[in-house]
């Protein structure tokens, strides 16, 4: 056990905790018996303070990395510390893909469960938990095998539960059959936000995957210009030659902290401009590798250091279809405030699942990265929270590092259902995190 300074991917509010790496479910159980406050941590890709616990005990799940055999139906059991990268290296050559992937392969399966991650296919396949068959969970009141059927309350509280019901040790997952390692991609460029949103509503159902990159800095007539990329897995018959290559390693890395302020309103504006100029007005059926299409940022290791020592926050929210105007309101609020935000990611969400704390709801989600530094930023984001609450939406806890606690219940109206399950398996609130404390989610 060692003392370690831990922070999220945005590197904004680090804290020091005891860090240890249990190698088995029994070792996890032994650690919980110590009675000190505990949270599990994977690869540290949640942006805020979800996987850290100031002065407490942080259990790294990276000691639990068994990848089981994939059966004929594509069902596999994985240690909670297996990363999406580990899984894909094993599964793609066997013609299986992960059913839901976030924008990076550097997340663990345990973390994917805790944040109930979603991908570009949410409109069609839902979030990660929808594909989980079973998991093993160590709670302060004992270890359980949890499925959506045996103890649905505990299952659905644990997915999306930000690690606060216990420590997930293994997950059984249904994979997706693929015929190649290529995706056939259609790319379209739009001059305005309303145009891209209309295109998504009309034709997203024809694609398994869909995502738009929106410019939140350009004002005036081209406000909210966007590039929409959509695709489906290539079938064997679509290709001249079928390949099933596993993802490779990152070719580039950032080995030092860039000066804070490198990414400012000017440099980001230039980047956004170049990005748009480089996109085609329309291109159809372009084959792209799985890595290029799903995980473009994985090509650069530690890219978060480009934001400098002060770090950055990611603001991701969703709103229901009925309040789709909110997306435009947010983009216009951001572009007029001069906040330096890289191309924001816009997606359609399909139906949510039964989890009381899961993020997605049918409608729209927008995510953007902003460097910490502009003194107005804290207030701008608080104003956006108000817009989102009024629209009946919410922000994503896996990205959050700044939400005010009084807004949590407004955004997650089923919070009390979650707390009821938590009280059952963790009556002393032993499972907690800096995020849980900041949001006053579970007492002290």
């Amino acid at each position: 056990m060692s003392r370690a300074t831990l922070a999220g991917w945005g590197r904004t509010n680090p804290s020091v905790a005891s860090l240890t790496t249990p190698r088995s479910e029994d070792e996890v159980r032994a650690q919980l018996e110590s009675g000190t406050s505990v949270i599990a941590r994977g690869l540290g890709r949640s942006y805020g303070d979800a996987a850290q616990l100031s002065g407490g005990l942080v259990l790294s799940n990276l000691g639990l990395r068994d990848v089981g055999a994939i059966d004929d139906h594509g069902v596999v059991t994985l240690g909670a510390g297996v990363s999406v990268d580990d899984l894909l290296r094993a599964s793609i050559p066997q013609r299986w893909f992960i059913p839901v992937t976030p924008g990076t392969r550097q997340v663990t399966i345990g973390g994917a469960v805790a944040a109930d991650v979603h991908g570009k296919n949410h409109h069609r396949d839902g979030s990660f938990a929808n594909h989980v068959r079973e998991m093993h969970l160590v709670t302060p009141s004992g270890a359980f095998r949890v499925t959506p059927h045996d103890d649905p309350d505990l299952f659905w509280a644990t997915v999306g539960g930000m690690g606060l019901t216990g420590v997930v040790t293994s997950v059984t997952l249904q994979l997706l059959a693929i015929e190649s390692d290529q995706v056939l991609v259609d790319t379209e460029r739009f001059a305005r936000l309303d145009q891209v949103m209309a295109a998504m509503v009309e034709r997203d159902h024809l694609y398994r995957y869909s995502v738009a990159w929106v410019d939140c800095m350009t004002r005036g007539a081209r406000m909210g210009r966007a590039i929409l990329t959509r695709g489906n897995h290539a079938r064997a018959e679509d290709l001249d030659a079928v390949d099933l290559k596993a993802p490779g390693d990152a070719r580039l890395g950032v080995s030092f902290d860039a000066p804070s302020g490198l990414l400012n309103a000017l440099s980001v504006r230039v980047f956004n401009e170049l990005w748009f100029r480089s996109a085609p007005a329309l291109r159809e059926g372009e084959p792209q590798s799985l890595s290029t299409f799903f995980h473009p940022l994985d090509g650069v290791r530690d890219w978060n250091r480009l934001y400098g020592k002060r770090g950055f926050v990611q603001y991701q929210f969703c709103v229901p279809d009925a309040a789709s105007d909110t997306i435009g309101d947010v983009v216009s609020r951001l572009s007029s405030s001069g906040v330096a935000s890289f191309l924001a990611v816009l997606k359609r969400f399909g139906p949510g699942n039964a989890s009381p704390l899961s993020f997605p709801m049918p409608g729209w989600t927008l995510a953007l990265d902003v460097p910490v530094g502009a003194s107005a930023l804290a207030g701008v984001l608080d104003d956006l929270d108000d817009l989102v609450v009024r629209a009946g939406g919410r922000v994503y806890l896996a990205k959050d590092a700044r939400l005010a606690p009084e807004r949590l219940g407004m955004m997650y109206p089923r919070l009390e259902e979650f707390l009821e399950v938590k009280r059952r398996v963790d009556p002393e609130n032993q499972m907690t995190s800096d995020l849980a404390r900041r949001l006053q989610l579970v007492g002290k």
Partner: protein
Amino acid sequence: MENAFGQPQNVVVLGGSSDIARAITKKLCAARTHTVVLAGRNQTLLDVAAAEAQEYGATKTDTVLFDATDVADAARTVGDAFDKVGEHVDLVVVAVGLLGDQRAIEDDASAVSEMMNVNFTWPVVALAEIRRRLVAQGSGRILVISSVASVRVRRTMYLYGGAKAGLDRLCQGLADSLEGTGVRLQLLRPGVVRSRMTQGQSPVPFTTGVNEVAENVMRGLGSGERVIWSPPVLRYVFAILRHLPAPLWRKVTADR
């Protein structure tokens, strides 16, 4: 816990009824602060400051009485304040100080000793206890109110300036010693601020109001810079002043 912008939720303020401390507390409460424990020497003034904190959004306030001439009591004061917060303390503001009338006390050994206790020894002993508690917590911030008077000590207030210089330099070393503990110490160096403390002083350039100081503190908490100057331009003014030849320095500070 504090958020990504350095805005704390639970705050302890030592010297909580001073004008600068009150202005900072108000701004903190308007952001994310909900629990404030104010320590000071006058219950009536503390109650006023606590009521003000509630007006600006604090949901829980409490007070602790102490006497900054009683150095042996510093650790008890800090302990009481932390206990009254009752959970993780995100920020401790050390705003203890006394300007004093140098001409009236400089020949009086016991008054000089008291002056050093209030401006230097008591805060340092308190900092020892604050450091111990925050390091055990694994995170937290300390904001120590120093003064530009500490950068180059001037003849008309060498007692105050000298004591603050000691505190300021000690805190620089303390801040370095905290690397890797999750705890951060930041110094605030305000110029002359219009407040009860400076009433009747002859006006000098770059004088500000307490709200401007508090605004600079909020920015400094967000950026995490080691030294927060208020107004920020004083960083450059004092880069020059501290290197003025001594005769010239004596001349420009002859009556201020």
